[in-house]
């Protein structure tokens, strides 16, 4: 039983369907209207909606790796992402002028912090969390993290895959990442995923980490940056 009085945990209740659960849990459910009502709710047949039926067509996560400059696009299919990686000659991102490089970010101890810097024309500013990006803006990330030695930045693709945009070592305390990305005019926003880990992640581990949005010794966060494409 859980420490919350007489009821078993919802995990224990939800696992009963598959024959798991102790006699104590089953006896409790037989005499508890609240727990029985929960089971009735989750075991009632439901209509499968179109979005779920559509998953039949969806292949498992695809994995694409690349680097250098990448024009994002909400409408880009995975094949286009492959072409971009191959066709666009990987080129080191233009460094920000030294006077524009923001000062190191100081965040609360323990929890990693990701800061988004946006270069619009000659002006570099820290993204405030709401301001829409504009086509042509360049985005660069600064990561402050204690105890994580690797960083990976990527973006989900429309078909359910994932493209890695940058991966590398992370110095103790964090760093302004050397890569930057130019915003294109496609779609209504950009979605970046930042993964911090203590060691390089094998593709199958990365896949699991992304699906679960975290894991042992791994920290994951999503950055959703709105984009203004119309004047």
């Amino acid at each position: 039983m859980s420490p919350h009085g007489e009821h078993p945990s919802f995990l224990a209740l939800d696992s009963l369907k598959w024959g798991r659960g102790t006699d104590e849990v089953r006896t409790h459910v037989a005499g508890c209207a609240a727990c029985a009502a929960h089971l009735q709710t989750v075991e009632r047949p439901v209509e499968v909606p179109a979005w779920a039926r559509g998953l039949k067509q969806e292949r498992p996560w695809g994995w694409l790796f690349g680097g250098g400059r990448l024009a994002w696009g909400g409408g880009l299919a995975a094949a286009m992402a492959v072409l971009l990686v191959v066709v666009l000659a990987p080129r080191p991102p233009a460094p920000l002028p030294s006077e524009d490089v923001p000062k190191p970010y100081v965040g609360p101890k323990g929890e990693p912090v990701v800061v988004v810097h946006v270069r619009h024309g000659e002006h570099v500013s820290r993204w405030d969390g709401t301001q829409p990006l504009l086509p042509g803006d360049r985005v660069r990330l600064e990561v402050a993290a204690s105890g994580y030695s690797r960083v990976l930045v990527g973006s989900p693709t429309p078909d359910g895959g994932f493209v890695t945009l940058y991966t590398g070592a992370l110095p103790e305390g964090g760093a302004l990442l050397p890569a930057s990305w130019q915003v294109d005019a496609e779609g209504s926003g950009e979605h970046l995923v930042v993964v911090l880990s203590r060691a390089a992640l094998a593709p199958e581990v990365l896949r699991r980490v992304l699906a679960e949005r975290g894991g042992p010794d791994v920290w994951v966060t999503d950055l959703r940056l709105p984009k203004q494409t119309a004047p």
Partner: protein
Amino acid sequence: MTVEEAYQAYFPRIREKCRRMMQNTGDAEDVAQETFVRLWQAGLQDAPPRRVVGWVYRTSTRLAIDRMRRRRAAAEFSCEETLLRLATAVPLEREVAQREALARLVGQLPADELEAVFLHRLDRLTQPELAEVLQISERTVRRLLSRFEERLEKLREGVA
């Protein structure tokens, strides 16, 4: 397992789990849907159910915390104010108070502590269950929960 069978087996449980965590029913539906899509994309539908249910609890909790962080509701309340509400809630309103208060803490406490507290207080997971779902040791579970209880205790002492 077909997608229809997987949906019937898992989605109602995922949805109820998300509703326990999130005040906004639209957000709860969105997180439930995202969790199910990830389950399918990860090819977990044919994994042993015990593993899948643990995965669902872990992943939906993380996705919900991510979603609540983006909502920035926490910015309106101080950490102390919110913890105090949690520490002093009377039993009758405790369930609602816990959900509201925990939602406000998402931007202010470490993610690992929040995950453990959400699963412990809202889903009633025991310490061994928490260790299994979060894939950490029971010792770490105890440390995370103790840290949170210490925060509450300090505030209770301040009120008394």
